Structure formats: structure tokens, C-alpha cells
């Protein structure tokens, strides 16, 4: 008898999710698409991804090729411009447009890698802290407090000083700095969910700690984490660019946007385009992601949804 009913329940729980999941997705898209900014952000973000993926096909030149006869050539529409280099060239004659296109690869990769690192480690720590409480919680959260006591850029700079300048180390440093936000969010969400009935019933049914944490509780804490992930994505790009700008991130001749800005600083008065364009690229990317983030928050936040 008992077996039968549990089999019934299981059958039901398999049948329901597919429909329910579609419905949830549909509802989510409904709210997300109502936010015009968010849709624009999404479109721009997708374009950037395409640009990054197909950079070698789209870019008119190699990002490292130096055209010695065209040093600091202005953009095509300016006096002395040349359609061979639509956005002009930099101080050693490299095509700006190509470098900007290849730069998208770095910024997006930085965002994805940093967020994956920060998200996975932060969620893990937050789960442990919120689930086990006690001494585990105290130790983890105090360490997070220490990380948060430092201005993020300063801590990232110091970590890079220890690890050595370079893009990989910069990403590790930024992930470390961003990770406490995920840990705090996860912990708070886990503590909220832990005493709910579905968790208790799963525990009574004999689910292991690991199953309870990862399968039962975690999926119900996702909404704030997704929003935080988008925010962190744009933060990661900004911080990596700042590190590059300060000479501690990607090293020249990498066409990373922040590094390009650092190289361009001395030409600020002579060639506006070498300074303006990389920064504009950073701004557009970060803005697109933040627009998406706002839309995601509105669509996922049940409190605002009702109003």
C-alpha cells in the first residue's frame, strides 16, 4: 500500500515537472520580455558573443599585425582617415577595429570564467555554512567578512602582486574577491529553506546530506544567485579592465580592452580614438549585461512580480 502510493507520487512528480518547467520558463520570459531594456541588453550580449566566437572571420586584420606606414591613423570618417582601418590604428599601427573585436573574446571569457569560479566556490561554502551551521558556519562566514573588509580592487591588486601579473592570475584574484557575495546569498537562502516542510520530509525519507544540499535545497535558492551572477559578470569585466589599466592584468600586446587603454594613455591628447574606443567597448558590454541583470531581477523576484 505504502509502496503503491509512493510509486504514484513518483509518477506524478515525473509527469508534472516537464509541463511545470515549461510554464515557469514561459512565465519568466513573459516578465523578462516586458522590460525593453533587458531585451536590448540580451540582444547586444548575444551579438557580442557572436563577435567573440567568430572574431577571426569578422576582424578585417590580425589584432597583432603592425602596419608601420599607418601609425595612429585616425578613423575613416576623420581627416586623413582610411577605410582600410575603419576605427583607425594605434601607436604601432595595429588596426583598432580588429583589436576591439578580439578584445570581446577576453572580456567575455573573463566574465564566464570568473563567475564560474566565484559561483561554484561561493555556493559550495554558502551551502556548507547554511546547512551545517555551528562552527563550520562561523569559520566560513568570518573568512568572507575578512575578504569583504578590503576594497575589492585593492585586494585583487594585492593578490595579483603575490601571484604575479597576468590575465589568469587576475581572474583568480577577481573570483576570490567576488565569491563572498555568493556565499552570503546561498547561506541566507539555505537557512530560509532548510526548515521548510519539503526539506524535512526529504530528510525523513532518508536523503543524505549531500542530496539534501544539492538536489533538494539548492534548486530553490537559484533566483538570487542568477541575479548575482549577472552582476558579478559585469563587475568581473570592469575589475579585469581596471587591473589591465593599472598594468596588473592582461599584459601587452594582448588586445584586452583595459590593457589597450593603459597603452593608449600617453596619446590621450593626440589620438582620441585609441582612448575612447576601448572604453566605449567596455561600457557597452557592461551596460548590456547590467540591463539584462535588471530584467532578470524583475522577472525572478516574486515580491516585485505581484505588484
Amino acid at each position, binding site marked *: 500500500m505504502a509502496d503503491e502510493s509512493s510509486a504514484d507520487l513518483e509518477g506524478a512528480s515525473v509527469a508534472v515537472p516537464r509541463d511545470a518547467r515549461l510554464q515557469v520558463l514561459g512565465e519568466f520570459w513573459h516578465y523578462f520580455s516586458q522590460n525593453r*531594456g533587458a531585451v536590448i541588453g540580451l540582444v547586444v550580449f548575444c551579438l557580442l558573443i557572436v563577435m567573440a566566437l567568430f572574431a577571426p572571420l569578422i576582424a578585417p586584420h590580425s589584432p597583432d599585425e603592425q602596419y608601420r606606414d599607418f601609425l595612429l591613423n585616425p578613423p575613416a570618417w576623420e581627416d586623413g582617415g582610411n577605410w582600410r582601418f575603419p576605427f583607425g590604428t594605434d601607436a604601432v599601427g595595429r588596426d583598432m577595429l580588429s583589436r576591439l573585436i578580439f578584445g570581446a573574446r577576453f572580456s567575455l571569457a573573463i566574465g564566464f570564467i570568473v563567475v564560474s569560479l566565484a559561483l561554484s566556490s561561493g555556493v559550495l561554502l554558502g551551502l556548507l555554512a547554511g546547512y551545517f551551521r555551528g562552527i563550520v558556519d562561523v569559520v566560513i562566514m*568570518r*573568512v568572507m*567578512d*575578512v575578504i*569583504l*573588509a*578590503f*576594497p*575589492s*580592487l*585593492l585586494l585583487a*591588486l*594585492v593578490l595579483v*602582486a*603575490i601571484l*604575479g601579473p597576468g590575465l589568469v592570475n587576475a581572474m583568480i584574484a577577481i573570483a576570490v574577491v567576488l565569491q563572498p557575495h555568493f556565499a552570503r546569498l546561498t547561506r541566507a537562502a539555505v537557512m530560509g529553506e532548510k526548515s521548510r516542510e519539503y526539506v524535512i520530509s526529504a530528510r525523513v525519507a532518508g536523503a543524505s546530506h549531500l542530496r539534501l544540499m544539492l538536489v533538494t535545497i539548492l534548486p530553490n535558492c537559484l533566483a538570487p544567485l542568477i541575479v548575482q551572477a549577472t552582476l558579478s559578470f*559585469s563587475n568581473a569585466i*570592469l575589475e579585469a*579592465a*581596471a587591473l589591465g*589599466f*593599472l*598594468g*596588473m592584468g592582461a599584459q601587452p600586446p594582448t588586445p584586452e580592452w*583595459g590593457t589597450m*587603454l593603459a597603452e593608449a*594613455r600617453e596619446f*590621450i*591628447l593626440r589620438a*582620441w580614438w585609441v*582612448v*575612447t574606443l*576601448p*572604453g566605449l567597448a*567596455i*561600457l557597452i558590454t*557592461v*551596460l548590456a549585461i*547590467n*540591463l539584462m541583470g*535588471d530584467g532578470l531581477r524583475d522577472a525572478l523576484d516574486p515580491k516585485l512580480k505581484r505588484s
Partner: protein
Amino acid sequence: MLKYILNRLLLVIPTFIGISILSFSFIRLLPGDPVDVLAGERSMSAARRLELLHVFGLDQPIWKQYLDYLWRALHGDLGTSLTTAHSITGEFLTLFPATVELSICATIFATIIGVFFGILAATHRGGWLDQLTMGTALVGYSMPIFWWGLLLIILFAAGLHWVPVSGRINLDFYFKPVTGFMLIDSVLSGQKGAFVSAVQHLILPTIVLGTIPLAVIARQTRSAMLEVLGEDYVRTARSKGLSNFRVTGIHAFRNALIPVVTTIGLQVGTLLAGAILTETIFSWPGIGKWMIDAIGHRDYTVVQGGLLLIAVIVMSVNLLVDVLYALINPRIRTR
């Protein structure tokens, strides 16, 4: 509430210990031998190395080194700079007012404009004014401020010559620092034009450093106001026939203030991180530029000391914000 504040105070201790361990480990985590790092000498004899090992206390067990470091740090002794041989605490104290001055100006700028536009957006919810303000705020929030600073320099300093490119005051003026705040010192000096010059030098850095806090404050003010404007007492105030200004400006805004003040307080970390970039761009002689220069020159004792001092400042301000929040917010006060 006392319990809440005490609890919050107790939390400071583990955080401080963590901060001090991190700054203590910094020099020991750097690649290379700590003696080489600290001595900055190239090839030294074995005898000299041993001598230095003793001078720096590196021959002691690690826990003793840490306690020693902590003890000296608590007495304000963070060692000396490797490049200038000056006391690090002393250097910090001379440069800190410049950062504070800039941060205060940026906070005032961000608060006044941010709150104004936040209220404006909330009262015109959904209209073009709301969309324009919030769109601009999102652009500000997404701004790579080091680039923003360069753009402003190109436009207003190099192009239009309205303001100077860098520094705190025109080099024609010289006076001994009294308070360390250029705005006050320039007035005290009695030199004609000094104050104007100090103000001119402050304008661009203030805008650059204030941009992100401004955007955050505007967004926060808007959402806090929207929440409050829907409340019953606001409707009551309106139905009593109070003027629109009284309702939004006084009844609603006073209650929207709590989250806004908290947001302003929590921007301190952002401000100090922003100060690193802003000061570098404008050659502003504050602690942000000091830290960047120290990292660039491998002046690791300065980095270590600065790290500790800055973290302690951020921690203290966050503590202050939390306590103030508990004091103003009746929901915590009555607990």
C-alpha cells in the same frame, strides 16, 4: 538593541584578526625569500643574510612573528617604507586627508544629485523622466571610471581648458599643510586665488569618483521612495490636502531615508576602491595612488601596512553604519 550592538562589536574582533593575518602573510606569500623582499638588496653575503634574518625577526617561530607584528600594529608601528625609509603610519597620515577630502566631496556630490534624481524618477514613475534618469543611472553604474576620467580630461582639461589636468592645487601656491584638507588650508593661507585653484582641481576627480555612488544612490532612492509612496500614510497625507511637495519631500522622503542612508554608508568600500583609480588618473596625492605606486615600486612594507589600515577603516565605517542603522531603525531598536 544593546545586545544587537554588542554582537556587532564582537564580530569586529575575528574580522580584525583575519585582516591582520592576511596583511601579515602578504610579505611571506610573495614569491622569493622574505629577507630579499624586505632588504631590497641584490646579492648579499650569507653573514649579512643571517644578520638581516635576525633584524627582521624572521628567525623567530611564525606565531611569534605574527604576535610581534600584531603588537606593533596595535601601537601604530607598521614599520618603514622600503623606498623612502619613512614611517608607514606617518606617510599614511599625511596622505590620508587628501583621500578623505576627495571622498567627502564625491559623497556630497553623489548624494545631492542622486537623491534629487531618485525622487524625481519615483514621482514620475514610468514617464520619460523616470526612464531617462534610470537609464542614465545604469550607464553611470556600468562606467569604467578610469576611462570616464580620461574622457573628462580630454574634454574639459585638455580641450576646453576649464579645469587643470592633475594635482591638488596650482604649483604657484605654496603653504604648509595645517589640516591636510586643501580646501581649508587654502583659505587659512590667505593667498588670493588659492581656494579657487583648489576647487578647480577638485571638480573632475569628484565627478569621476562620485559617478558610481551617484548611480547607486539614485536607484536606491527611487526604489525606496516607490515603496513608501504606496503606503497608507502617504495616501492619508495626500487626502488631507497637503501640497505635493510636503507629501513627497517630507512625509515620504523622511521614511525613505533609512535605506538611502545605509546605501550611502556602504559606498565607502566602493569609494576607496574608486580612489585607487581616480587618484592614479589625476595624480592626486592620496592613499590610493600611494598604494598603486608602492605596488609598482615593490615597496611591499607599504603595501602591507596600507592594506591593514585601509581594511580597518572600511571595517570601522561599516560598523558605524550598522550601529547607526540600528539606532534609526525602530524595527531593530525595539528588539
